[in-house]
């Protein structure tokens, strides 16, 4: 338990987890739609404000888990309710809590039917997502990881587009099937670890090599589907296209990060030997994802699909950064996780705003709206530039660090990733050109109204973070630095210990 810095005062993390759930329970009694919207906005904003205590109280010089809470839960199996935050998870929690109020705002007029039920789903999602990032007991983690599927399934399946049933079932089956073997791996680790589900205790143990490979594969299946890595990505475009705007934003900004978070939190420390052995394959799969995502995005006529495939490419960069196993790579990957959450989330919000007006996601029907919606296309322009990693925006910093790390690891690999960056520019600029200017055959867009105040308020904070991280990323990097250094130190110490003993 020495990895935990127990939180003596106010149980901050538990509050973050249970406040949305309590809000959802209250909503079960309410049927009034307008009240449901304001109430959910109030709850998510409160959670976001409370979570701001995290960066202020966060000790940047330690790699231990902070704000930790420990309560025993199921004694017979030694399952505990353990929470804690370290440099890897703290930014992801903030991302989650800060993005949720904007998801509520984005659904203000978009969702017209069964508003209360929709908001209940959003709140339960928030509980589960925060929980996944702070859980330090593997069973608690798994429960929240799986429980998340139900509200997300309902979000897509009830409020989704025309092919919602296909998309929601595909989403559910894919992610659930992927995580089934994760459960077996968890139980194996439990028996191998003196019957403990405490995650930090499982790390850096010299499990037999075959066992490590099998556990890594179980982890990989679960996390790679969630990321999603090529070739497990096929559920993503379907789910994105059919989901309502808030669903798409949650999916892109937070759910995808759980896969990469899983790699960092579990795969690396628990199966270090398997990671070293299987690293090349994962790296080249990431490259395949980057190139494939880029090429496919280039050919899309549907804006949501385009952004979905661009996500496959961007997340390829993140897994690339994680598995080059050096400090630039991993820090860049964590930063890029945040960047992707901000940028892609904002892009999905933008597409949702067009969709609310034209009721179409087709690129063709949105051509040439720059003339009539100047504010909108300005914001869209910034987010698109951020998405293609234009210098000065947030993604540039992240991608630059990842590429720097990759160059240090292996030059051919880094060269193979470069076309991905060019493809990103190509498909984003293509979309931007069509939306802002279009051609001579633009449909009549003169009836479109520009963004209203609520929509500008929704997008403005995203723009703020695009530039803050793009121009001054140091505060963000400082938060994760100790943990990443510690992760790599432990990794190298482990390798040396193994080499010294000569186990294999």
């Amino acid at each position, binding site marked *: 338990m020495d990895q935990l810095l127990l939180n003596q005062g106010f149980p901050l993390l538990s509050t973050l987890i249970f406040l949305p759930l309590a809000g959802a329970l209250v909503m079960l009694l309410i049927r009034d739609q307008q009240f449901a919207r304001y109430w959910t906005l109030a709850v998510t904003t409160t959670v976001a404000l409370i979570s701001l205590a995290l960066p202020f109280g966060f000790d940047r010089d330690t790699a231990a888990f902070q704000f930790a809470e420990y309560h025993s839960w199921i004694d017979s199996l030694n399952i505990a309710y353990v929470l804690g935050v370290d440099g890897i998870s703290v930014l992801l929690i903030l991302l989650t809590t800060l993005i949720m109020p904007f998801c509520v705002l984005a659904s203000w007029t978009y969702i017209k039917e069964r508003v209360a039920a929709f908001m209940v789903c959003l709140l339960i999602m928030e509980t589960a997502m925060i929980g996944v990032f702070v859980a330090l007991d593997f069973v608690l983690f798994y429960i929240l990881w799986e*429980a998340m599927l139900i509200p997300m399934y309902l979000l897509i399946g009830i409020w989704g587009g025309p092919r919602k049933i296909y998309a*929601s079932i595909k989403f559910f089956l894919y992610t659930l099937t992927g995580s089934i*073997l994760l459960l*077996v791996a968890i*139980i194996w680790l439990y028996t191998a670890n003196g019957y403990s589900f405490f995650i930090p205790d499982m790390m850096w143990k010299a499990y037999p090599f075959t066992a490590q490979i099998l556990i890594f594969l179980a982890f990989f299946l679960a996390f790679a589907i969630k990321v999603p890595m090529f070739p497990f990505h096929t559920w993503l475009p379907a789910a994105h296209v059919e989901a309502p705007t808030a669903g798409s934003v949650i999916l892109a900004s937070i759910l995808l990060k759980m896969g990469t978070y899983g790699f960092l939190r579990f795969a690396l420390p628990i199966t270090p030997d398997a990671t070293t052995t299987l690293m090349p394959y994962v790296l080249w799969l990431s490259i395949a994802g980057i190139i494939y995502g880029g090429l496919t995005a280039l050919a899309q006529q549907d804006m949501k699909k385009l952004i979905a495939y661009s996500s496959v490419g961007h997340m390829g960069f993140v897994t690339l950064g994680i598995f080059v196993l050096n400090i630039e790579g991993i820090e860049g990957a964590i930063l890029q996780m945040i960047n992707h959450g901000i940028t892609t989330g904002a892009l999905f919000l933008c597409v949702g705003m067009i969709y609310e007006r034209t009721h179409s996601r087709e690129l063709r029907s949105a051509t040439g709206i720059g003339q009539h919606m100047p504010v909108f296309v300005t914001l869209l322009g910034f987010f698109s530039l951020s998405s293609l990693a234009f210098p000065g925006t947030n993604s540039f910093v992240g991608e630059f660090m990842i590429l720097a790390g990759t160059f240090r690891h292996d030059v051919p690999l880094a060269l193979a990733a470069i076309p991905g960056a060019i493809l990103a520019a190509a498909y984003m600029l293509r979309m931007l050109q069509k939306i802002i200017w279009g051609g001579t055959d633009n449909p009549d867009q003169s009836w479109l109204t520009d963004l209203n105040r609520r929509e500008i308020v929704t997008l403005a904070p995203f723009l703020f973070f695009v530039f803050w991280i793009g121009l001054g990323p140091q505060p963000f990097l400082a938060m994760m630095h100790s943990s990443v250094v510690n992760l790599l130190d432990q990794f190298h110490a482990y390798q040396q210990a193994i080499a010294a003993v000569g186990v294999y």
Partner: protein
Amino acid sequence: MLFLPELTILGAGLLFFLLTLGQPSSATVRTSAIIAAGAILCASLLSLSQEGELFYGVYRVDLFSQAFKTLIAAAALVVILFGNSLVGIKQDSRPEYYLFFFVSCLGLMMLVSSVELLAIFISLELSSFAVYIMVPMRQTESGVLFQMEAGIKYLLFGVMATGFMLFGMSYIFGLSGSTSLDVIARQLPSLAGKPAAVVAMLMIMAGFFYKLAIFPFHFWVPDVYEGAANETTAFIAAVPKLAAVALLVRLTALASPQGDVVINMLMICAILSMFYGNLSALVQKDIKRMLGYSGIAHAGFILLGLLTLKTSGYANSLYYITGYALMNLACFLVICQIAGTGQNVAIADFSGLHKRAPILALTLTVALFSLAGIPPFVGFTGKFMLLVGALQENHLLLVTLAAINTAIAIYYYLSVVRLAYCTDSTSQDTIETGILTNSLSLLLIMVIIVMGVSPSWFVNFAEQAIRTIP
């Protein structure tokens, strides 16, 4: 006091026998059934902490048996409560239906207390014969006649399984010279590894495999589930399975000296049950058939706990079967409400349920997600603990196959949820549910969640109860 629950239930049976002589109104029958079931539950709760032996040591009252009696009584009460006024049963035989219902419960209660082979046999037959008669009592107004087929199938398979069991019992008697489980338990270790003892034990288990619908004794399940009235199926799907698991726990404790052979046989049965049940359930159109096949798969899961041959494993099995009974009751509650006139319910009939009856839709969704093993419901916790227990005994392959089965099962549970929540059908009218049904649904949802989130107290209680078995 030791015999109080059984006496109460016997009294209830006699009451309904008297009612069959007159021509009581439906409301009278229903009210008296609810009162009787409530009285039985109270009696079981009152005698929960009793201990002692009756009838020259044939009948043992201990925490284990009393806990099961309470569970059986509670499940019976729930079935009676949501059965409305038995629309699925012939008008003139409703009092008789309750008569047999209570007699069957009596048999099950006696079963969990029996510690002697003949007593086990008699109680099992008492409970089975009552159900054989309940199945064909379905009303024929809608022109369906396959309840007769179902009744005959149930009877024939049941008699066959009983035959197996008797044959095994005769072997055991021949080997140990006694029909008392205590004596047999003392004798068996000296017979360890003898083929006759192994065969005998497996044959006795076969009788309960039949009740629990474990492959290869499952053939009756789909047809009987489909053919019997919804209320009857609800009973068959939940209550006898509780008692069957109780007896299997007693018997596997006996079989443990036989070691690997028994474990391997149980393992094969478990794997085949899971795959057969889940794969067949994928293609069903009728909800009761689907639940029947899913029941076969869940029975396979229960074996996972038994084959650890450990107290904790047995406790997990008890937890799982209790959870399973709860989830099934919740599903059948919904089915009974949707089938307004007692007809069979196709899966397609659930479409747009969220509009027609929001509470029922929620109940169904919670029950199905729980059956599918999604946290935080009781189905997940139960499966999780069973898998942990089995992996502690190094059954890695079995655990992996079981986990894969969970993934297969998701699909068919999810397609029902999909119809209930994600499709709209404006054509069908809203379903009126009484306040009793609504509160019962909410109670079941609550219990499914609470048991799932904090399983400790139940498992501890179950372990404590199992330790009272000598």
